[in-house]
């Protein structure tokens, strides 16, 4: 697979320093878990599973993503796409995060056309995580 240097760099960055790359999780019982939205997309049989968590905080009346964590099972470009998504999320309002399109990830990482589904998965993951966070709010 002829990946761009950007995919390779992002992949290696994640693998070599997972903590810095925001690999990890918040689990029930953690402080602030009620402010965490989780999105899991993909399937093991398809070779890609992405788990994204966003931690939100109400700042000046708007919910902003203050932190995010992920874990991804998948090919190099799926792992790079998740890492790229994380970089794009922090500090954004939910509305802004909702508007992130897979095409931005494709452009930044220069994904080959056969790997575009990895960026679609990332877009779906943020949508799921936002939905999950909003459903938590409703339960409040």
């Amino acid at each position, binding site marked *: *697979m002829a*990946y761009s240097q950007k995919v*390779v760099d992002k*992949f290696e960055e*994640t*693998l070599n320093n*997972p903590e810095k790359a925001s*690999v990890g*999780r918040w689990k029930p019982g953690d402080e602030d878990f009620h402010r965490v939205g989780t999105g*899991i*997309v*993909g*399937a*093991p*049989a*398809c*070779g*890609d*599973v*992405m*788990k994204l968590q966003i931690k939100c905080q109400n700042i000046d009346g708007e919910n902003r993503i203050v932190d995010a964590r992920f*874990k*991804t*099972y*998948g*090919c*190099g470009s*799926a*792992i790079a796409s998740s890492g790229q998504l994380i970089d794009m999320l922090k500090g954004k309002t939910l509305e802004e995060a909702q508007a992130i399109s897979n095409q931005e990830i494709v452009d930044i990482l220069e994904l080959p056309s*056969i790997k575009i589904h990895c960026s679609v998965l990332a877009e*779906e993951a943020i949508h*799921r995580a936002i939905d999950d966070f909003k459903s938590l709010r409703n339960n409040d």
Partner: protein
Amino acid sequence: MKQIYLDYASTTPVEEGVVKKMTDFMSFDGNFGNPASRSHSFGWKADEAVEEARNNLATLIGCDPREIIWTSGATESDNLAIKGAARFYKNKGNHLVTSKIEHKAVLDPFRQLEEEGFEVTYLEPNSSGEISVEQVAEAVTEKTILVSLMHMNNELGTITDIDSIGELTRSKGIIFHVDAAQSIGKISINMSSNKIDLLSISAHKFYGPKGVGALFVRRQPRVRLEPLFHGGGHERGFRSGTLATHQIVGLGEAARIAHQQMDDDLRKLENLRRIFWEEVKDIEEIYVNGDSKNKFPGILNISFNFVEGESLIMALKSIAVSSGSACTSASLEPSYVLRALGRKDELAHSSIRFSFGRYTTEQDVKETALLVKSSVERLREISPLWEMYQDGVDLDKIEWA
């Protein structure tokens, strides 16, 4: 970065001595003649070299040199054998038998023959990747004219009992073709004692050049084929086209060396496999694909559960290996061979084929094993599936989006 090559089942480097010999058959100062030229010494000398190569290959596989037809490689040999035999004997019957774990160079010709009206039975291997003589016996009918099975599976290294299957097909008057692209020069085969009718051979799998192969066509009992290429009537009419002298000489020399070195090569590979396996066997949740007793030691196919194969290959960037993962294929489908074993798709996605060869050192396999261990560990650290597995979640019970 120093690269370690562990993809010998894909292709092998050409032996230095073979390269040297090949270059003697190209330029004006060399032996460049057309072996088909009967009117001068240039042709005679080239013909002599081609026949010497034929003798070398015949010695390696234990046949009469006149039973060898030169081709451009195993894909052509498979096509010529399968389509050639089916089309020639079509008046005897229209049923053909092969298996689901054959190479595409065998499966695709069968698909083509289905288009032409033939009926094909695709045998399923057991979970170890084996096709048995009993399965073949059950599948053949009065109308069966051809059975085609591979000698050694390219993804798994499993070896088919071609001697027993040959006895069966001969007793029923059915043509038996064997794709031996992976096995020739690596494990012994004796055409004078087995009952195989057609055998496909590729040079680049045993340290010869790419672009040349051969088809063994038995003379006693005589097997006939409809040729694919029509033209000057070379190779007794089976395969027209000027012989690629330098390629054929390369194949012949590689065959001569393989004949001498086979036992040493095999012993060495067994040792490498043992060393590698000792290092990796304790990794949690790994599965050997094609775990058969009858297996070539140079190929080891392992699924590392919860880690996707392509990402593992990227993590092992100083090691050249291949994967059954969909992500490394153009089709985005995981290996059909692993699926045919009944492996779950996720295990097919997680598979890596390590294949060792003549130039692999103990140091190579030790370094690789260490890197595999640490890479699997690191990739599992970022895998949500590993996290769920560690939490005791049954992944089969989750409804995936």
